[in-house]
């Protein structure tokens, strides 16, 4: 049973040091981390049956999806390699990539312009 690895990856990818902005208006990265965590926990179901740590991990996941308004389907960039701690910095540090990865929300995104010149 490797539920602890799921927990540590989830904590590592959602801690402030991971670059996620607690108050960021675009918390798509958090939803990616949460979906990856849910997938990782789900995969441990058989081998962790009866394990208290496993069952206490399963319980709050639904609540977190609801609280952070995350859809259960969408990119889980951690899914392929559960050991990957968090999205590559180039993805996290590129607004357009972050927004485009968020799928549906991207349509509404617009840019605004301000200029100051002359006298």
């Amino acid at each position, binding site marked *: 049973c490797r539920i602890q690895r799921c927990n540590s990856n989830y904590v590592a990818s959602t801690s402030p040091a991971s670059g996620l902005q607690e108050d960021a208006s675009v918390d798509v990265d958090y939803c990616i981390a949460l979906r990856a965590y849910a997938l990782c926990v789900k995969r441990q179901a058989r081998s962790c049956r009866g394990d208290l740590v496993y069952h206490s991990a399963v319980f709050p996941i639904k609540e977190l999806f609801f609280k952070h308004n995350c859809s259960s389907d969408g990119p889980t960039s951690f899914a392929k390699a559960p050991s990957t701690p968090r999205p590559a910095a180039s993805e996290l540090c590129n607004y357009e990539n972050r927004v485009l990865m968020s799928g549906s929300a991207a349509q509404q995104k617009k840019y605004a312009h*301000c200029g100051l010149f*002359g006298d």
Partner: protein
Amino acid sequence: PHLRTFRDEFQTCKVEGAWPLIDNRFLSVQVTNVPVVLGSSATATSKITVIFKSYLGCSDQKVYQATTDDLPLAFQDGTRSGGESGSLSVSERGGSGVGRQVRIQARYIGTSIIIRRVGSYLTFAIRMPEDTLDFSEDGGGLQLCLHGCPRNELIKEHTVSRQSQRPRLQGANTEPGPLRPPHQAYTVERATAKCRETLQVEDVYFQSCVFDLLTTGDPEFSMAAYGALEDLKALPPSKLKQNPPRTPPNPSR
């Protein structure tokens, strides 16, 4: 100076001294404006300071400052880029543009800035994602880019007059008055002809050009409006480019 706000309002303001253009959780921009002609309320920008606030995992705090004497190609700490995979960088912008130009790209917040030196003053242009701006914020926070000039600092809002062919500034003085410098070098006709050399469409940029020549008598100012229009074309308000959705190959096909 002339101001185009994030809400596409056009104004000409006095705003002499240091004023905030933008001040949100990602960056702060402050300008210092100085009188252009003695006795006139017309001012122009002599200093621009941009503070990029730290963004965990992407960039530490970086400060960029330009003055009419110095348009550096680096942040104040001497670096030209910051953060992961160059998510924040300063570069020289070439091309036929007016005056020397510096471009600052902050990819982690989807923001681009162009700062130019035109004659002895500076111009500023920025493009930011709307969802990084707090439009809902009340007028309390002074941010000229968001809320425009304070009423008592407003010289006039620019509207293109329908009746006359000649561009008029709404409420502008038509007789010689405080807006005209003691040594008037331009008549409206000459200023209009001069501005038409670079700006063919008589829009608010054209009006700003005429205004600048009438108030300063300085031909260099005719290029400030032209440069600002070039920056608008380089940083257009627009929808986020959508990569065409990749449709999975149709097995039946």
